[in-house]
């Protein structure tokens, strides 16, 4: 029985999500916790996940930070470079809704609005917390897999 390309892609994709980490003006907390996922205590690579060095290799964008004026166009560009199907994880209170920085003058719009401006159908998963614990991030990735399976 021959698998269709689509089914084949889905089978391969959900077994090895590759993640590109974008810092859109975060304070480092979420970033060190994302890095923590790689290390022996959490070891996310046992699920086939890998942090990669280029968005062109990635299936998932892990976005942290508030989305400042400077980073907003760059986040859009990184998103457009990511091949479909793509999922965005908005990690931390800042990425979810700018957190305590909402009123600051150097903000662009929050991460989700920034991305929806270039792709109205963007799939965004929110991981709240300041910073979210690594366990919460693993749970979010599991949800991303479930979503990709059902899509």
């Amino acid at each position, binding site marked *: 029985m021959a698998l269709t390309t689509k089914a084949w892609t889905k089978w391969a994709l959900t077994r090895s999500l590759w993640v590109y980490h974008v810092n859109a003006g975060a304070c480092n907390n979420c970033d060190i916790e994302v890095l923590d996922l790689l290390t022996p205590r959490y070891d996310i690579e046992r699920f086939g996940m890998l942090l990669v060095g280029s968005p062109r290799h990635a299936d998932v964008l892990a976005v942290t930070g508030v989305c*400042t*004026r*400077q980073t*907003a*166009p*760059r986040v*859009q*560009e990184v998103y*457009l*470079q990511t091949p479909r199907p793509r999922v965005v994880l908005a990690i931390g209170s800042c990425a979810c809704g700018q957190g305590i920085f909402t*009123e*600051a*003058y*150097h*903000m*662009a*719009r929050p991460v989700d609005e920034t991305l929806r*401006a*270039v792709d109205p159908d963007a799939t965004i998963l929110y991981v709240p917390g300041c910073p979210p614990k690594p366990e919460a991030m693993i749970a979010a990735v599991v949800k991303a897999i479930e979503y990709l399976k059902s899509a």
Partner: protein
Amino acid sequence: MTVAETETRVPLEGFVGEVLKELGDAVIEVECCGARRGWARIDPERTVEVAETMLAMAGARLATATALDVRDGIDVLYHWAIEPQGVVVTLKVLAERPALAVDSIAGAVPAANWIEREMHDLLGANFRGHPDMRRLILDDSWPEGVYPLRKDFDQVRDRPPLPPDQTPPDVGRRERNAR
């Protein structure tokens, strides 16, 4: 100035006093001379000379500088840390309206290079003779002449509009052209 003259002069005591004495008559007003902290106002004409004297002192380094929006202009505060005495001496220079300019000390003290650029970005203080006054802190889309740390700038109401969407950054555009 006259107010300062009528007030009792702050006695120059201890190590901070010695540091301020070394600056001589470049100091026009001593506001505070404590055990570990000194606050003084210096002659705007002699900013560079004072910076050179300070840097030449043993153990002194420029910790940072702060700019403040005050009534008469912009107050520039150079914070000098002196180790191992653990002293912080703050030297104030007023950049008066309308020019809002003082002499840059970046030529004499490399550590002042970035912080003067930052003060120019955020408060619009001008530094005469700065070697490299490009924008450092604010985004390139931020309009010229809008200074967010001025007191008349409201961070919510006066936020400049964002540039239009779907403008890929330069790098991306170049990359596509090259392909």
